[in-house]
């Protein structure tokens, strides 16, 4: 195993070398190319200013050298082992030195600084999104497979396919238009990561009186507990009726909250929500039903407490940040979990019909044990494969979502870098994402071995 890992690690070097070479060549050969002139944006410059600026850039980045020389210089800069130069540009030594990703043309700042600014934001988004994707995908996918051909399977397939085919930019703009606008429901903020006011707030939320906190907790917990109980114990028609009533009530409340309130809303919204509620309650998938109804109960309880509790409440920096993240995280996750749920369903289904599953059932293993111990573990392989491509995605960010919600993440940085022909930045980002992709593949390969004893690298 260690030799295998070492071999893979060493193999990464030529691959990365190739990646940067290709990217560099493409950038150098792009129409317009990269030269001091392209760096000087706009035209409101007097000729002397233009000349001075060009000379300055040429001196700083060596843009007037032939492209191979520029590439070798860049390579020397990023490698921890290489030539060192003195102030006059003569070689002063060879050996280990500080690796340096260079200075961005456009921002005039070290690339590492720029990355250090953007990476935490992208990581925050992805740290929330990725677990959400996996939990939902596995919960739905596995159950759909066991219910093959029944209502749940067909229903979830249709809705997953629908979700998967909605483009993110459309969903993002629609969500801002409907749920972040005074014209409809102004529940969420339109852009950014926190409100100006939140910067002056303490980090954690706090309340004017201890009684309010108690009220909030008690009512939220009571709401959740009641609906969880209902979800577990009540017979189908009763709980469907209960949820339909709750949905209808929420619909009426929503219609009242709508600014314009065209009359049709008062009919349509309650009907729609009542149908959704009843549908959820009707589901015979206990886990999903409990989770859904429990969180609805929690929200209703908390909502009532806030509505009737009175007193002062400061949301604090943390809640404000989370509140800003709701819409972006929904946008980032719905497509992925839809795709992943379909994938999980297929994989689990294939193994459920396999001989070993039948054998396990025949020898008397409980159905749940068969599913999670045997079948699920064998179905993990496709999920691991997807994970390999998720790792670079973690840092790459999503351009579209970042653009729509004005979040300064890696995706936007990368696209702007390409647009501006910011060579050092593009090369650094491709270098990093290349590295992460290769690492992702390596980790996936190792995980295969962990999940499947048949796979071995010795």
């Amino acid at each position, binding site marked *: 195993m260690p030799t295998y890992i070492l071999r893979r690690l060493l193999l990464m070097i030529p691959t990365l070398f190739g990646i940067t070479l290709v990217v560099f060549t493409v950038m150098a050969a792009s*129409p317009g190319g990269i030269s001091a002139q392209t760096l000087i944006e706009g035209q409101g410059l007097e000729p002397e200013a233009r000349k001075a600026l060009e000379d300055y850039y040429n001196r700083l980045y060596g843009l007037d050298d032939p492209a191979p020389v520029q590439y070798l210089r860049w390579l020397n800069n990023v490698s921890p082992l290489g030539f060192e130069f003195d102030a006059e540009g003569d070689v002063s030594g060879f050996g280990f030195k500080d690796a340096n990703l260079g200075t961005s043309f456009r921002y005039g700042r070290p690339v590492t600084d720029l990355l250090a600014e953007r990476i935490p934001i992208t990581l925050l988004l992805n740290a929330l999104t990725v677990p959400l994707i996996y939990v939902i995908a596995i919960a739905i996918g596995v159950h759909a497979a066991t219910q093959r051909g029944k209502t749940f399977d067909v229903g979830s397939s249709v809705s997953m396919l629908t979700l998967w085919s909605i483009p993110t930019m459309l969903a993002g703009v629609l969500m801002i238009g409907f749920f972040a*606008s005074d014209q409809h429901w102004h529940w969420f903020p339109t852009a950014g990561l926190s409100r100006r006011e939140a910067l002056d707030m303490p980090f954690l939320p706090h309340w004017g009186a201890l009684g309010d906190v108690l009220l909030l907790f008690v009512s939220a917990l009571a709401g959740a507990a009641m609906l969880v109980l209902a979800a577990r114990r009540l017979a189908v028609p009763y709980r469907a009726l209960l949820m339909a009533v709750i949905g209808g009530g929420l619909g009426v409340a929503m219609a009242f909250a709508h600014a314009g309130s065209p009359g049709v809303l008062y009919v349509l919204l309650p009907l729609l929500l009542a149908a959704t509620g009843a549908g959820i309650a009707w589901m015979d998938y206990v886990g999903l039903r409990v989770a859904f109804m429990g969180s609805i109960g929690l929200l209703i309880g908390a909502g009532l407490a806030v509505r009737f509790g009175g007193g002062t409440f400061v949301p604090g920096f943390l809640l404000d940040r989370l509140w800003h993240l709701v819409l972006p995280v929904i946008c980032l996750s719905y497509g992925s979990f839809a795709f992943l749920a379909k994938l999980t369903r297929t994989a689990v289904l294939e193994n459920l019909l396999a001989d070993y599953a039948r054998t396990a059932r025949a020898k008397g293993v409980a159905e749940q044990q068969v599913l999670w111990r045997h079948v699920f573990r064998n179905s993990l392989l496709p999920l691991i494969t997807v994970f390999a491509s998720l790792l670079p995605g973690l840092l790459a960010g999503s351009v579209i979502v970042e653009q729509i919600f004005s979040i300064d993440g890696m995706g936007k940085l990368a696209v702007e870098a390409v647009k501006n022909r910011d060579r050092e930045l593009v090369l650094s980002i491709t270098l990093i994402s290349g590295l992460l992709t290769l690492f992702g593949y390596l980790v996936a390969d190792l995980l295969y071995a962990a999940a499947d004893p048949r796979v071995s690298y010795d």
Partner: protein
Amino acid sequence: MERQFTIKDLILFATLGVLILLLLLAMYMVDRQWLKLAEMERSLNEQAQDMRALRGSLGELEQRVRFGQVGSVVQEEPNLDQGDAFARAYAVSRYPDYAEGDWVVTAFGTGLETLTPLVSSDAYSSQVQSHVLESLLIRDPETLEWVGLLAKSWQVSEDGLSFIFQLRDNARFSDGTPVTAQDVVFTFDFIMTPSINAPRERAYYNKIENVTATGTHEVVFRFKEPYFNALSLAGGLAVMPSHFYGPYLDKPEGFNQSKGLLLGSGPYRLADPENWTPDQGMVELERNPRYWGRVPPPYERIIWRVIENDSARLTTFRNGDIDTYAARPLEYQRLLDDRELMQRTQHFEYLSPVAGYSYIAWNHGDADNASLFSDARVREAMTYLTDRSRLIDEVFLGYAELAVSPFNPRSKQHDPSLQPRPFDIGRAKALLKQAGYEDHDGDGVIENTQGEPFAFELTYFQDSEDTKRMVLLLKDIYARAGVLLKPRPTEWAVMIDALKKRDFDAITLGWTSGLETDIYQIFHSSQIEGQADNFIGYRNAKLDELIVQARSMVDEGARMPLWQAAERILYEDQPYTFLMRRKSLVFIDRRFRNIEKTRMGLNFDMLPIETYVPTAEQKYTR
């Protein structure tokens, strides 16, 4: 026997997890409180410092009173005050409902890279800097005359090469240090230091030979040669504090790579002048409590949020979370019909004198290979063919003004007797026929005598929706005269490349302009060589001479006829077909008062600030 994982374990682990999470969050919260404490300590220190200074000057006064010097120290100073920069703001502050307080929250369409002066190059950061840094002189928005801001008076030497400024003695930077002549000298020297990343400014100020301090509050700018814009060059220099930026002369990298080194004498300041970073997603300026001007700035804070997505910006404005919104023509018309929005906002259409003009530039080619457009008759015909009023009506919905020349029609540079050429297809055809283009084979396209059709490519920037519509409309109009236009949408870098290599037939772009526009770099024949801005290769010896004369003529009365003569030559020759000047269309929240259009544009962005929010309508009061 393997122990089973039970619900009890789950609860235990969940509780432990929640506890650890809470602990982490609590630690984070304490950390934030420390930061807040440090901030408060800083402002307390500042106040203590001010108190000490005040006590010192009080003591001095007491000494003088004791020795009976009072009364004799009032010097007979000649009243040198040339105009009062605060006159308009002061008049406004006398209004009955005038009130200080409230915030202004606006949005930028792109993120900022840096706020450090000289290093930053975009319009957004200079907008922020204009609230923090001040120059010696500013223009009065109505008379357009220069009035003193940091300078109380100024004189010009006999030869017109030296400009002497007397600074105000009460001006202070926002950290309490007085503004002296030394700071002005420092600013110039700092810009001229080669290791500072300011090549743009260095070339701009290259006409100044030196700047010297002749007293603590007197400074002299000496120019190398007479230059018509000398006063604006010297007076417009934004003064940077030497004690703040001085240390960076030793470590220029620290300055060149900085993101937010911004401190000045202006009415607003950064809460932390050294550590602003772009990842905050906004710029926030607070009122400078030590502002020296006689009218304190009304708003407590000015905030610029970064919202890139257009529809998100509009929604945020509708929600009332930002106070201004600049609309495109189509959008503007649609929003005017929105009753709810109209109740909450006021809207303005205005023509900013510095907004510039758009044009189609015809490539003249060079001596070896003349192009289609090297013949002045062809260019004149193209201007007759370009139905500019229709473009304005249909593409820009009338929110633009026809351009005759590079000079602003309201400036003295413009000769009012020049009328724009109307759309006249008959005259265009006649002119083209004179130039040798006629439809010989009856296919609807005109040809020259060799039978080559009159066809050319029009290069334009692909990402601009309005320009795209304009080019397609032009294509149809030109086709009626048998002229073939092939649209060539291009990406910005490629477009710059095409300009550089002179590789285009015709190109449509815009230039920004100043209050007095210098056309040297665009039309002087010396600017053809070396990839400079006369990219169409236009040569006219008469015009060259006029431009050079006008530029070195310091006397305005003698300069304006020269510009007008130059304008007439451009009008005859039509090296460009000048298209239009576009209006700015903005919505502003209704709570702001006294917003008006001035000759410099809308006064909402101007300094000293002359708008305010009455107390009853203030939105962000504590």
